[in-house]
């Protein structure tokens, strides 16, 4: 198994080896595996992944998305070292082997050859690792401690996913943002500029901020972010948060898909383990982009010129 997202920066645009037979479907079915990983038990979490992948496949899903660090749990502290997996290792191999007839996004601690540890989500397809995203923004404030234990990724890339598509040369372009990555609007901008159709956000968002409102502060924030990015970048946003508790800290679930017009599809999930399915349609995305052609009108030249100016100023 090779890593397509080579750290040396070589830029071979990954092409899907084949567009899966889909008849005339322009839509796909995405399953949100909103689950509560065990904290520090990769072996049992892996078995749970295999069960859920099987179940999602049976229910007709083309893609199943797991939350951030779904193989390990979130507040790992020193367990980061013991729970890490490697791209060529057995655990990712087992998951990849399960990605037949269904694509899988799973979260893990990824150890690099030079022994750095990343908070990563891997996109598995047709038995292979198709894409890896290493979390760029590691929250280290308040209750978060990620930079103490983890190295940060250095790229936001979308890629052509091997998902069913009605048009052989129009593949779904997918990009991953892990939890805190979402809190930096430039992340979503870069994916949009890279042609993303579907922003997948695996998340382990701790619930906090109780007040008079019926929703947690964090839940409200993600509601705003997912709807805003979807609408402004006319892309699907697939948000899969985990549930359960770790050392008294709750994870609030609320997994949802937001369509390219910024509407939450169906109901967001609650606080229980659940695996809702959503139908995503490139035809709907096309309609949204015709109705709201912000991407067409985006002035990348202005952005680049201004960024260059700011870069010069920051250098001084």
């Amino acid at each position, binding site marked *: 198994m090779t890593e397509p997202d080579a750290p040396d920066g070589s830029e071979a645009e990954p092409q899907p080896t084949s567009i899966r037979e889909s008849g005339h479907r322009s839509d796909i079915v995405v399953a949100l595996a909103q689950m509560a990983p065990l904290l520090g038990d990769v072996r049992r979490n892996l078995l749970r992944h295999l069960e859920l992948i099987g179940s999602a496949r049976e229910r007709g899903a083309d893609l199943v998305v797991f939350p951030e660090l779904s193989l390990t749990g979130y507040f790992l502290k020193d367990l980061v070292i013991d729970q890490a997996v490697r791209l060529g290792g057995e655990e990712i191999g087992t998951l990849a082997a399960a990605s037949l007839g269904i694509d899988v996004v799973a979260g893990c601690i990824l150890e690099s050859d030079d022994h750095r540890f990343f908070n990563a989500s891997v996109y598995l397809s047709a038995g292979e690792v198709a894409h890896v995203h290493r979390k760029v923004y590691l929250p280290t404030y308040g209750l978060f401690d990620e930079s103490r234990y983890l190295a940060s990724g250095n790229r936001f890339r979308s890629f052509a996913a091997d998902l069913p598509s009605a048009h052989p040369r129009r593949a779904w372009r997918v990009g991953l943002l892990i939890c805190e990555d979402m809190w930096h609007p430039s992340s979503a901008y870069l994916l949009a500029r890279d042609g993303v159709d579907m922003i997948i956000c695996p998340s382990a968002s701790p619930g906090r901020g109780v*007040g008079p409102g019926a929703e947690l502060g964090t839940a409200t924030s993600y509601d705003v972010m997912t709807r805003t990015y979807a609408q402004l970048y006319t892309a699907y946003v697939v948000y899969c948060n985990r549930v359960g508790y770790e050392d008294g800290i709750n994870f609030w679930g609320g997994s949802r898909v937001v369509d390219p017009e910024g509407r939450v599809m169906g109901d967001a999930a609650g*606080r229980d383990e659940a695996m809702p399915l959503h139908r995503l349609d490139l035809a709907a995305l096309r309609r949204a982009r015709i109705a709201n052609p912000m991407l067409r009108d985006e002035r990348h030249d202005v952005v680049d010129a201004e960024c260059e100016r700011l870069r010069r100023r920051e250098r001084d």
Partner: protein
Amino acid sequence: MSSTRNARDCAGASVTDAMTLPEPGSAGEGPARDAAPRSVLDIDAALVTEILVRFVRDEVRKVGFERTVVGLSGGVDSALALTLACRALGAGNVVPVLMPYRGSSPASERDARTVAAGLGTTPRVVDISPQVDAYFDRFPEADRTRRGNKMARERMSILYDISGEVGALVVGTSNKTELLLGYGTIHGDMAHALNPLGDLYKTQVFALARHLDLPREVIEKPPSADLWEGQSDEDELGFEYAAVDRLLFHMVDERRTRAELRALGFADDFVVDVERRVRQSQYKRRPPLIAKLSNRTIDRDFRYPRDWGH
């Protein structure tokens, strides 16, 4: 259950004036529909209840337990903790324990029984008088602070004994106000396996208790550790919960500066007193100090979550 701290004079009175000031951040939200002004301590009781009930269920079950044991004093904190535990695990899986001392107020035991019965639980009653008296017969000079702390620790040891006997985790009842002020007995009522109330100020405990329809007498009586006759938390502390909770919220949660607190109407000496209480009781909220020798000292650079493997 709280323990004794020396009462201190403290000018908290002027802070009641601040209650009528508009809260920063709430100004643009329109006038409240009812007469009660919106407070920074307002919480959505249904949401908080859901989080706390799931907390108890999740953290108890995943470590292999099904049952909990709760010391029930007749006060609002333990009544709320018991209610949450019952909702989480079912009344049959929760053992309330009444541990009166012969000097305790009969009203406390009566209220505790009302709460236990209302939830469909069968309380155990362990009179702590013999063991407490046996000890202090040897130390008759002990003041009421020592006696109060001893009672709290006897109760802890009983709860942990029952915990072992029936295979149940001890649920704590310390709220955020008393934890921050250090108004509790270390290794006494502050000792427990898990605490659903530790991030709720006393004012919020009352709000949740009202939401969950706890008996009126439990909610309306003045808060007391009931370690001696006529004891009152607010008399002993020297300020009202309503005032100190608002101060703690602005001080701890919002990290407001001394000047900002003054602008909100909190008297300087009240602020200084509360800051001192928080600082001086920090040791109670932390594990014991370990003298560092190795490169991996427990809790310093040997850091693992408590829910390790669960």
